[in-house]
């Protein structure tokens, strides 16, 4: 598969405790030819992040989740892998945005998400990273 540069798809890790949001994001990015791994909890998301040898190109995480919050996910990922871009998404009426930016999220978006815009931001972040 080496050399088929055009087909090389980006690998995303998406974490959200809301099933609907998660499957919507999963479906959208899979259709767009991203390689998507998704998780319903911060803890499982971190485990996936740690066990993925080749790493992820980008992580999208919800902020308010039980046990391990999105803020924790971002801090832990940024500590282990400062170069991995992370996008935080927050629900309506929740206010941990300040914490997310302190944790060095690259971008904070609020729900409802405009998927096309989200993809533009992802491509932006990925091109900066290169």
């Amino acid at each position, binding site marked *: 598969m080496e050399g088929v540069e055009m087909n090389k798809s980006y690998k995303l890790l998406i974490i959200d405790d809301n099933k609907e949001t998660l499957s919507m994001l999963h479906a959208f990015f899979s259709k767009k030819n991203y390689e998507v791994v998704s998780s319903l909890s911060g*803890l499982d998301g*971190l*485990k996936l992040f740690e066990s993925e040898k080749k790493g992820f190109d980008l992580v999208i995480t919800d902020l308010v989740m*039980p*046990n*391990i*919050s999105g*803020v*924790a996910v971002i*801090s*832990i990922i940024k*500590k282990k892998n400062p170069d991995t871009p992370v996008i935080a998404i927050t629900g309506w009426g929740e*206010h*941990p945005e300040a*914490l997310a930016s302190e944790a060095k999220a690259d971008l904070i978006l609020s729900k409802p998400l405009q998927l096309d815009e989200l993809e533009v931001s992802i491509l932006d972040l990925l091109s900066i990273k290169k």
Partner: protein
Amino acid sequence: MEKDKQTAPTIIGLSPNVVKTKELINHVADTGLNIIICGESGVGKEVVAQNLYHRSPRKGKPFVKINCAALPEGLLESELFGFEQGAFTGAERRKRGKFELAHGGVLLLDEIGDMSLSLQAKLLHVLQSGEFSRLGSEKELKTDTWILAATNHELEEDIKNEKFREDLYYRLNIIKIYLSPLRERPEDIPVLIDYYLKKYSPRFRNNSLNPDYSLIEKLQEYHWPGNVRELQNVLKRILVLGNWEEIVDELTRSTYAKNDSTSDKASSKEPSVVSDILNSADGPLQNLESFSLKDIKRRALNRVEKEAISYVLDRTDWNRSKAAKILKISYKTLLYKISDLKIVPPKKF
């Protein structure tokens, strides 16, 4: 106490809640992120805090605990931040606060839910800036402390009732560890009993003195308002008095007494209808995460239906076709409801 400093107390249990708690501890102990540990009194919040500390790179550094419920506001403030000589009457010499003492280590803010709003604001400022000053001084001191907070309050409720600051909650709640009440994880009771019997008394090391299975089963049905701490006390009493049956019976009897009255201490914080429903026959809710209005509605409806049907059945001496007519449902529906809602005919003596 000294021994506690060397090793973390063992967390005993095999319920999903305990297993998950241990997994969380292993995963987050090295992050230094703020953590809230919540659960009823005696469920093991402090044990969790100590395990976090012992598995963290801060092990060996100070572990400082302060109980935010035990002190009046002014005193708590000076305990937390310290004071300069002459900061207030009685401040005869400079005193370092818990933030200073915990520098480089861990500060456990126990019963954080009981902290006053004005002190919450001051604490928030310290957490945001990483700086504090002693009372009576302008000088800002840097603090590097890992903050663990414990509470038996439902802070989400306290926020709604404006007793807890939402911004402080978000800052502490980077990671949350919830310990469920012992009555919701009866599978932990036999292993806890085994562990503590062996710990308290060498006589139990050889397994021959272990209690009857039926007694353990009774203990698993008890509602343990004081959770693991209460279990420890019961076991100590049993060891002193040497009589399992008597003590277990005493507990069980007090359970029935409690069920008769509506003012059960463990649930007095909640509106009684809701707490009744939460503990209703089809199983208590595991925790707030599984709380949903839909579920409450279903449980409430079931309960009302059950009461109404039982009432009519009583009045008709369990004549089910008569009862169905009164209730204006079909005979078949009534039979289905009787079994679905587990309505049992009164025992005839």
